[in-house]
């Protein structure tokens, strides 16, 4: 399986290397991707729950903010 390409720019000698991730880098990358997906799902669920409450109350986000402010 092809791993993602990463770029490394060494600015001391201006050398640019484009290469595949190493196995160790790929492992970290996959862990980050999973964490990101989890955080994204969590944020979307929170947003959906918030919107559901606003819909039930018949309020816009700005109106709710005014009330809570």
């Amino acid at each position, binding site marked *: 399986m092809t791993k*993602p*390409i*990463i*770029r*490394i*720019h*060494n*600015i*001391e*000698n*201006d050398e*640019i290397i*484009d290469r595949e*991730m190493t196995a160790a880098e790929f492992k970290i*990358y996959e862990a*980050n*991707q999973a964490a*990101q*997906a989890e955080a*994204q799902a969590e944020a979307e669920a929170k947003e959906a729950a918030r919107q559901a409450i606003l819909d039930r109350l018949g309020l816009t*986000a*700005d109106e709710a*903010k005014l009330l809570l402010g």
Partner: protein
Amino acid sequence: MPTTTNYGWTTPADTDLVKDGASAIRTLGTAIDTTTKNLNPETTLGDIAYRSSTANVKTRLGLGTAGQVLTVNSGATAPEWATPSSGGMTLLSTTTLSGASTTISSISGSYKSLIAYIYNVNQGSDGDFMIDPNNSTNLTDSITNYGENGTSYALARSGNRIRTPGNVSSGNTSNAWTLILDNYASSTSFKPFNFYGYYEYTPNSIKACMHAGGNFRSTTAISSLVFKPSTGSFSGGTVLLYGVN
């Protein structure tokens, strides 16, 4: 033989014979001449004199060159003329963002701050734009204010990385940020940062303005910056990295 109070010049005594007057005056004159020269070593227009380690002997300091200022030497023993150190920005690198991450490595530690101008960033997938100093994650404390351009609301979000507070729309090329890292080369203290700019936020292509401030919680000098989208790869973007003194 009597001597003068301040410079110790030899003068004739009241009992000296008149025939020795010429010699006495000559001795006194020579002493005055020597002392005067020691106190006035300047030879050229613009020279100045300062006290040497020997009493009543001054050292000549020749005029500096245009723009130089008078300062104290590194041994803190004497004044000297020196060219004032000038503040300013030095372009260290121009890097095109590519791949799942782009690392700028071997950053010189010779500056007080780093400024990165990041522009025309194009992410291949919707996701956060992130910057990890020394490729370290979870070492940043920050708070981000953001909101849509033209609206009254603003939101805040805390975080543990230098990142956008929401997804950057894929395919958009107008995303631009500035990162300022102060005291980045310190090996004894944390590094405060500012990260601000604009991006198109994924939901409804909202034009998001953001400003994050915080601290890179590490005493290790920062020698690399890793730019990465949270998902996918960069399709474009440029980073101009400056060292600032």
